[in-house]
């Protein structure tokens, strides 16, 4: 271990601590705003740690810097502009949009490593099986998160309405078919990690599954679904952590995934609904729950 690696290790520990304190603080009114800033500082620290590590060990090529700056400037500016412009009344949609992009990012990283296995050389994950499994999880969850979040946003904006057949029981059959399709592709990928057509089948199957699961859900339940999708994007980040071999990514992703799940449960309780009825009930479940709840 040289100095850079030790420094990165120390920075990572501090970043994880600050992220945990950030999530904790965000759940209390008094400390929420500081906690948000704390989490932002932790993220910046994590990036600094990563850059320091690579500068100190393998170095970063000039070409890589160009692409990094390009991606940072475009993504960062668009994010800042969106955050400033969006009206306060459409916050859930905005969160859904951001969340979908996070899922997309995990998906792209996993696809990159899967399509160009030698170049990426993530390596640290060691044996091929672990890498294959984590790629499958990252692609599957990332794809569902992306398509589900975009549908949630479009529904809340009123750009998209639920077609009638989606409210009937047919949708369960369609969703199960899509899930089976994804599963077959995932198993095929587990056996032959370099099967590109299985990879695309998985991307398309899980993407459509995300749409099929989210589309029938009513507008009032949407915040709960967005919270659940947020939890998924944490899982996708953790899976991406396995793909590139980063402990920090795994712990942060797992934290967000678990905290998001708890928040989803809390929100369901607040609405006096069960998660199952939100996810699978649709219009039918709403009437059943209202009948049961009354």
């Amino acid at each position: 271990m040289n100095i850079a690696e030790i420094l990165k290790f120390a920075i990572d520990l501090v970043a994880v601590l600050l992220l945990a304190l950030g999530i904790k603080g965000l759940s209390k009114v008094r400390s929420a705003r500081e906690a948000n800033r704390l989490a932002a500082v932790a993220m910046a620290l994590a990036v600094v740690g990563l850059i320091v590590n690579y500068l100190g060990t393998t170095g970063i090529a000039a070409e890589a810097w160009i692409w990094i700056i390009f991606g940072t400037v475009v993504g960062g500016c668009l994010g800042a502009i969106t955050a400033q412009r969006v009206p306060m009344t459409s916050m859930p949609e905005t969160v859904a949009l951001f969340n979908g992009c996070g899922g997309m990012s995990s998906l792209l990283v996993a696809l990159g490593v899967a399509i160009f296995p030698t170049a990426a050389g993530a390596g640290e994950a060691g044996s091929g099986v672990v890498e294959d499994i984590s790629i499958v999880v990252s692609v599957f969850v990332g794809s569902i998160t992306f398509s589900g979040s975009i549908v949630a946003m479009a529904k809340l904006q009123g750009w998209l309405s639920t077609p009638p057949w989606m409210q009937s029981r047919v949708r369960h059959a369609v969703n199960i078919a899509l899930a089976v399709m994804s599963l077959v592709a995932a198993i095929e990928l587990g056996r032959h990690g370099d099967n590109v057509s299985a990879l695309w089948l998985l991307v398309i199957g899980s993407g459509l599954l995300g749409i099929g699961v989210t589309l029938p859900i009513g507008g009032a339940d949407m915040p709960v679904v967005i919270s659940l999708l947020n939890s998924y994007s944490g899982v996708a980040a953790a899976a991406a952590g396995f793909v590139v071999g980063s402990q920090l990514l795994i712990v942060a992703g797992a934290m967000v995934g678990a905290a998001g799940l708890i928040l989803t449960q809390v929100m369901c309780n607040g609405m006096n609904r069960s998660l199952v009825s939100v996810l699978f009930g649709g219009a039918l479940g709403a009437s059943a729950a209202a009948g049961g709840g009354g």
Partner: protein
Amino acid sequence: MSFLSEALWVLLLGSLLGLELIGKVPPTLHTPLMSGANAISGITMLAALTLIIKAGNNIPLLAMGAVALGFALFNVIGGFLVTDRMLAMFSRKSSRRRDNH
């Protein structure tokens, strides 16, 4: 193998920590908390950075990494700013109330 076993421990302990972090959340904080946690899940930008740095001369991979990085940063920067906007409105309201009293 050592990375795998370590990583699984990290996954387990991280999940348990996440489960314990949020106990009671007042309903007004549901959306900001969701938004803040969402911004944190953009930490996948570290994976995108790693991908770019290790890509070497592979242009398609570099481009893919840059797009992934762009998406992740859109999530992170937008997420934190939007959370701050929500919470700013929140604190202004409470300080105004404090002024009235």
